[in-house]
């Protein structure tokens, strides 16, 4: 019997990418995708279920579809996208309900992959140059998104302790860049001048969006368990990141940015949430060797990731965004999946 996979956050970049890749895997029988929004990419056989993060729906789906693998990609790490209350609902409450559903009596769930972020380490002058997976953060988190991700990781840990028969993999992704994904850092690098903080030139680490998807699929396929940092090799100064982008940095004052960032955001110039301001001051490096040790190979270094992002940025005005516009039509999708009129290759 093949695997029966539940993907949370099907409408997000990661959820849809993982679903697309899993559809091509004959070892996967069923893919169920949850989200509040419709998927934004064409999918062949993934079943989309519009749902919120409430417990009763999740428990019923897990039970009814006999889900054995959960890919939890529906975690917001970009605090510029929504209100902090929504982030709390999605990250903390959603994860709590998901794991409550997965640990219900008679649950068939045996594998869980959670996509977290290296934001959980924070960015502080007392930080080591490289965070290992066991490293503790220097200071209690002030940024709301960091707090919520730490709570999420708490639920993941509890679930793993209570369910020793389940393979739980917690992946902490570094700053993601790539041709298609939009992140606050990507937006900052797309500006005519790249914002920096005066007097600071911290070192940054990046991971390519393709390596992110590959890492999720890697731990899924290998049933890897444990906590892993996912980040490209190498650290490069922010000024060098800007240089690779062919841009100059624009130094913001080192003090009072807490006050300045709100008007900058509301004017639509650049949105620098507190966790990003910390990063622009102190940077962050994470040790990526544990995931390499279990066999994962990166295709991009940190500098290579930036270069690939820049290349995509350069050709975007010429060829347009590589993601073609796709509109989810519920009835059409249902027809293709379930109508007897459609002749499906059954093997």
């Amino acid at each position, binding site marked *: 019997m*093949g695997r029966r996979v539940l993907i949370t956050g099907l409408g997000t970049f990661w959820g849809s*990418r993982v679903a697309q*890749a899993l559809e*091509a895997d*004959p*070892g996967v029988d069923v893919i169920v995708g949850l989200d509040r929004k419709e998927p934004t990419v064409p999918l062949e056989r993934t079943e989309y279920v519009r749902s919120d993060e409430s417990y009763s729906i999740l428990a019923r789906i897990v039970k009814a579809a006999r889900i054995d693998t959960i890919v939890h990609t529906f975690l917001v790490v970009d605090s510029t996208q929504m209100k902090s209350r929504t982030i709390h609902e999605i990250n903390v409450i959603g994860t709590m309900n998901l794991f409550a559903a997965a640990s219900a009596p008679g649950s068939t769930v045996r594998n869980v992959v959670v996509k977290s972020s290296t934001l*959980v380490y924070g960015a502080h*002058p*007392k*930080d*080591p*140059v*490289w965070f*290992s*997976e*066991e490293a*503790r*953060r220097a200071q209690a*988190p002030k940024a709301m998104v960091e707090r919520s991700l*730490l*709570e999420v*990781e*708490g639920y993941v*840990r509890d679930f*793993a302790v209570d369910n020793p028969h389940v393979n739980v993999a917690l992946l902490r992704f570094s700053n993601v860049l790539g041709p298609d994904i939009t992140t606050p850092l990507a937006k900052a690098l797309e500006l005519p001048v790249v914002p920096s*903080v005066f*007097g600071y*030139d911290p*070192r940054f680490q990046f991971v390519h969006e*393709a390596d992110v*998807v*590959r890492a999720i*699929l*890697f731990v899924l*396929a*290998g*049933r*890897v*368990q*444990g*906590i892993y940092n996912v980040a490209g*090799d190498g*650290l*490069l*100064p922010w000024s*060098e990141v800007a*240089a690779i982008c062919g841009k100059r940095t624009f130094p913001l004052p080192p003090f009072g940015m807490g006050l300045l960032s709100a008007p900058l955001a509301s004017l639509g110039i650049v949105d620098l949430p507190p966790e990003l301001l910390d990063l622009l001051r*102190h940077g962050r490096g994470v040790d990526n060797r544990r995931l390499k040790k*279990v*066999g*994962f*190979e990166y*295709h*991009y*270094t940190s*500098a*290579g990731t*930036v*270069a690939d992002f820049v290349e995509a940025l350069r050709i975007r005005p010429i060829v347009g965004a590589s993601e073609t516009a796709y509109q989810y039509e519920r009835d059409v999708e249902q027809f293709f999946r379930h109508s007897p009129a459609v002749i499906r290759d059954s*093997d």
Partner: protein
Amino acid sequence: MATAPGPRPKPKPKKAPATAAGRATKTRVRVPKVAPVGRSTSVALVPVPKSETPPDLADPRRSDVDEWGRSEHTREIARQVYGPLYRTWHRVEWEGLDNIPTEGGALLVSNHAGAIPSDAPAIMHGIETELGRPVYGLADEMFKRMPVVGTMWSRVGGVLAHPDNAYRLLREQEQLALVFPEGTKGTGKTYGERYQLRRFGRGGFVQIAMRAGVPVVPIAVVGSEEAMPMLWKSPQLAKLLGIPYLPITANMLALGPLAGMLPFPAKIKIRVLDPVRFDVEPDQPRYSRSLIMDTSERIRQQIQEALYDMLRQRESVWFG
């Protein structure tokens, strides 16, 4: 809340279960039957974007800033600027330079003095020019906090004194790291307390050298106390500004607050003592506290005695 280690800190390298191997008839999936070793085989069981591994990852770096933030280019400029100060101002003289290993990691441990200490640049400059080996200076996070200063400090080889940083530098990269266990207690001494070594922290430097399996090389520096003697300090003002001490130095009185940053041309003499090697296994999570404290105290004593010896031999503060 801290990011405590997860439930299963030791992941078992489970590789490529061959579940899909038998049933896949016409499929794009390549399923490696054996656990893939090396970089030629892709481990992914499912088709992933760009699954062929490039032979060598492109790493289009533009600057020479290394993972620690040190730039050899900036360091070269710093050496050129500092060179005249080193040669003609302080006329730095070394003794026992061959005690510093020419290869392999070593933790250099020295006394620390002067409101703006002259010992750190003298030691780093000397070893880099004489031995051609980079020296990473381990320092308090205070430097990293400050704009401009923090960046410059990091570019010329300053690294936060964090056990993980020291371990990676010494054990994995076999570099030279310089540490001042007295910290700001050493530089915060007033002139009346010159050459009286302060407590050597909590012996963390011994523990890190033991874990990294590298020798400790004790270094005694004479002259940095007189290069910038602190006459008076204001604990209240320092506290207000959030810095370890706010000094009034003789240099400030003589030259004014800005030119007072310039050290007096005291003769600097550096004596490198015999390396201290440890008879313990590296990579242990913990070492005997008493062994650490005994060793730390012994090294402190050695440096203190060397300082007294050098001061006895010294005839002039300015000419050595």
